[in-house]
């Protein structure tokens, strides 16, 4: 039981860039995070930053450029006072959502009145398995070998077990791109997007000077207008020679960051704020690591139960598209309404900057609900080594 409600008053995120070759390839994840933290603070002129109880940042590979407690580093880089602390948390792909839940919990327990929940990830700079692989030899037993499985292998296992065909996966992927492109075209991401100005320092060898190349990308880089079922069908399976999971029907590796400002009811009233949403419930659950993609099937009913809601009450579901195979397995297993799932496209088109995704898609959900007038919405995702997370929000706009 909690003693008060937690409300989200701001939710912003950067455009998502393609890892390695994209617009953020030289942009540090701590700089991106500082940018969105600054963004949600500046969006609330009433806020005395000293009031911020903590900054909780999700990051799936918290090392190197996003190491040494990136939450604290970015808080300081954002210009917040020394008194504002920061903590980095990691639950892989749900880290950003986990940060929101933990921030909400601090408020709901009455321990804080203002919190920032955020997430950042540069897959350009820190690879999926981190910079130094150091596998525990103990995992190679029958019970634990699935810890060694790459995410693609687990997606194949889900595809097999829930009989998701290659054709269905490719069609799902194509729809993700089509929805994302339509949303960009309609400007549906504008309210949540906080563009970041990238400055590349490049050697101008002819003049012997450093040339600054500046750009401010305003939309996500991942969606492809040139894809088609034929093109997707031509791709080879990426993880299993006899499989169906390809680069085209998997999420893209990406760079990006997102942040949410949460406040208590007390602060809401004191400053007469109009919140975006109320944080309703959160749940996380474990599944066998070899079918990690099915995780939301366990987490969603629990989150609904906590909220006292049924699936039919949900107007919008942001289901992270780690793979089309697991997304479709989850949709079919729970009989989710496909029209309500990822109406603006998902990670196959928009990208999946691991630890940032939870915060980014929360922003998408809250602005989407505000725009369309739905009441309840959910952000959910599967998590490596076999987990699922789901968070429910109530639109107050």
């Amino acid at each position, binding site marked *: 039981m909690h003693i008060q409600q937690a409300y989200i008053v701001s939710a912003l995120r950067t455009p998502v860039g393609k890892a390695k070759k994209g617009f953020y390839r030289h942009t540090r994840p701590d700089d991106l995070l500082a940018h969105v933290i600054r963004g949600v603070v500046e969006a609330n002129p009433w806020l005395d930053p000293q009031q911020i109880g903590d900054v909780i940042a999700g990051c799936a590979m918290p090392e190197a450029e996003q190491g040494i407690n990136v939450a604290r580093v970015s808080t300081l880089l954002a210009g917040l006072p020394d008194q504002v602390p920061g903590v980095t948390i990691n639950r892989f792909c749900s880290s950003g959502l986990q940060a929101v839940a933990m921030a909400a919990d601090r408020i709901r327990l009455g321990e804080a009145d203002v919190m920032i929940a955020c997430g950042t990830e540069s897959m350009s700079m820190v690879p999926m398995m981190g910079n*130094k692989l150091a*596998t525990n*030899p103990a995992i*190679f037993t029958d019970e634990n070998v699935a810890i*060694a499985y790459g995410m693609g*292998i687990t997606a194949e296992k889900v595809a097999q077990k829930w009989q998701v065909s290659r054709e269905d996966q490719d069609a799902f992927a194509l729809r993700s791109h089509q929805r994302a492109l339509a949303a960009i075209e309609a400007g549906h991401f504008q309210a949540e997007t906080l563009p970041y100005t990238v400055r590349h320092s490049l050697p101008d060898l002819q003049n012997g000077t450093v040339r600054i190349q500046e750009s401010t990308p305003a939309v996500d880089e991942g969606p492809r207008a040139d894809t088609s079922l034929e093109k997707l069908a031509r791709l080879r399976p990426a993880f*299993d*020679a006899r499989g169906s999971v390809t680069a085209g029907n998997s999420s893209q590796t990406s760079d990006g960051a997102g942040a949410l400002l949460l406040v208590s009811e007390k602060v809401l009233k004191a400053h007469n704020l109009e919140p975006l949403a109320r944080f309703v419930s959160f749940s996380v659950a474990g599944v066998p690591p070899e079918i990690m993609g099915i995780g939301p099937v366990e987490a969603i009913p629990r989150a609904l139960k906590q909220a006292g809601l049924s699936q039919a009450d949900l107007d919008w579901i942001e289901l992270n598209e780690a793979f089309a195979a697991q997304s479709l397995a989850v949709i079919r297993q729970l009989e989710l309404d496909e029209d309500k799932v990822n109406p603006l496209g998902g990670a196959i088109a928009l990208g999946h900057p691991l630890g940032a995704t939870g915060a980014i898609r929360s922003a998408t959900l809250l602005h989407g609900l505000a725009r369309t007038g739905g009441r309840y919405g959910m952000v959910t995702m599967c998590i490596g080594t076999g987990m699922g997370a789901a968070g429910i929000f109530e639109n107050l706009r």
Partner: protein
Amino acid sequence: MKSIRKVAVLGAGVMGAQIAAHMANAGLETLLFELPANEGTDKSAAARKAVAGLKKLKPPPLAHPAALRHIEPANYEEHLPALADCDLVIEAIAEKMEWKLDLFHKITPHLGEGTWLASNTSGLSIQKMADALPDDLQARFCGVHFFNPPRYMHLVELIPTQKTDPTMLDALETFLTTRMGKGIVRAKDTPNFIGNRIGVFSILATMHHTARFGLSFDEVDALTGTRIGRPKSATYRTADVVGLDTMAHVIHTMSATLPDDPWHDYFQVPGWLQKLIDAGALGQKTRCGIYRKQGKTIEVLDLEKGDYRPSGKGVADEVKAMLKLDTPAEQMAALRASDHPQAQFLWACFRDLFHYCACQLEAIADTARDLDFAIRWGYGWKLGPFELWQAAGWKTVAGWIGEDIEAGKTMAATPLPDWVMALEHGPHAPDGSYSPARQQFIDRSSLPVYRRQPYPDPLISERYSYGETVFENDAVRLWHEGDGAAVLSFKTKMHTISREVLDSIHQAVNVAEQDFKTLILWQTEEPFSAGADLSGALAALQAGEIEAFTDMVDRFQQTSQRLRYSSIPVVSAPRGLALGGGCEFTMHCDRVVAALETYIGLVEVGVGLLPAGGGLKEIARRLSALPENVDPFPFLQRWFETVAMGKVAGSALEAIDLGFLGACSKVVFHPHEVLHVARQQGLFLAEAGYTPPLPDRHIRVAGKTGIANLKLVLVNMLEGHFISEHDFEIGSRIAEVICGGEVEAGERVDETWLLDLERKHFVELAQMPKTQERIAHMLKTGKPLRN
């Protein structure tokens, strides 16, 4: 002598781009020119596209991906001033004289005072081009004709004009030989020069006789391929690869430029060929030509049916038997005497080819050697036409040709030139090859560059004695030429490594340590080594002689160690394949001097084993040399993948990149210069005060964590059906050896520890049924078995 550092290639077509690639392979700064783009801001877009395309071509024109960085795309609008500091400019645009002359006119003002200019025309008149150039440039101009693909075809024809400066020509020949690794033939300025003149004639004669004897295309390819010492693609498959339209173009050129050739009537595109071209079936590039692939079946055009049918008509048993007779003389006599259409066909092809070569030699080449090498190096034949003729009995065959001319059976009635009958044994003699123009035998070129080739590609008349024998047995020969360098050459088939080879290497090192300054491992012909002798190993295993087998593995390891720790420098000098044990020996030598076209790799997984001649130990040792604060895993993983996938380096440069060859290795572009450079290296190391390495007792290993990391890779490959259970087994064991066993990461072990691990896992794998199946399959088929 002028040194060549920067070159420009004009024309980024198939040939131009590939010539540029090979220049870049050779470490030259290379500009690749193409027409300026009409649209967009990048005027060099066309050249840039051609450069990018080099990465996709097969066989790869780039010997190493980094070579790409040496090629700068350029265009005629913006970059002509850059020609001023080019040492060599090679024109390689389309075969249109007006276009070439236009281009020369455009570039001439920009050429530097010392810039050499050359045309890579495949047959247009070099003199005509020279006439259009200013006087001073004419001295610096000649033809250089590369063959496709230029990295792999050994031949470059060098065509001077009357005004070409002989010093420049010598310098260019030197450059093309040593730096580019090419075999140079000087040709006279006649249409299609030597290689294509004779090569295309041979194809035309083959087409003519195919029709005359009513043979099918696949049948002719079976007859005119490897069975008679020519490439597997033989006649018609080669035409498909070259492109049927290109083939027609060459035939048209011959027809237009050689009106007085007595064989002129045959310089015509056959009706069926024209039909294919008209239908857009141009060969490989359109996936349909004389052959086509339907699913997994190769089909061939059947003229009688007017349609394609599955290919597969072969050589008749009686003709096969004729081609297997002991001597070329018996073979040729049998073919001629037989009534079998296939035999008659072959005789007719040989006869008319010999006839044509004899009649044209004086006009197109200086000596019979030049003609034979042009065909061997440009068309991939084992022996040139005159060599074939001489081997079959010069006078006898000449007599038969004469009879057939008399009888009106030959394609042309022209009599054989007088010099033919005047030569007793043929045009190749110990003191040189015959020159009809000079009416004497001419020795090989005395250009100093050829002193770097102690044993050049031999003609049929040249038998080398390879120095003075130090000792010789059935397995090896140790020899020297009095310069302090002992050379060890294997005598086994494919230079495989048997027990006797191992023992002989020990003996050779012992002797060399006593009496020589350095020891060179070099084979008199390719390959360097196909690895261990598997038949002996399998026999021991199947007889259950595990102890004897283990002892042989131990002997293998000790042989590698003996090479490494000898008191004199040991230099490995590979060319061609260097697999398994051949790779391991090379990894244990002090220096490697490798031909560019060396294909080295540890391929033991193909037969279900792991490298256990010290190869994995060497990998662990090399990984240990990384700085302590560097995560070794990316390097470990790369080595692991190289070995576990049995990867073979595509060139000596790539082998350096993969780590098989050390960074101090020398890559020699000309295969016949390898021995020379290897000796120089060995003697240099000896003179520099050689100290053998000390035993390595502090090899830092990746241990348990390293093994777990590699297993993680293997688990995913197994789950993903990319490898079999047995591959997983082998891979796990390779991981264990290169990580130094189940010890803590960062612990230090010695070489004996690693060699023991290698041997243990090798012997255990060898006893597994799946490994024995792989070995048996390899011995039977020559191909690896996936089980």
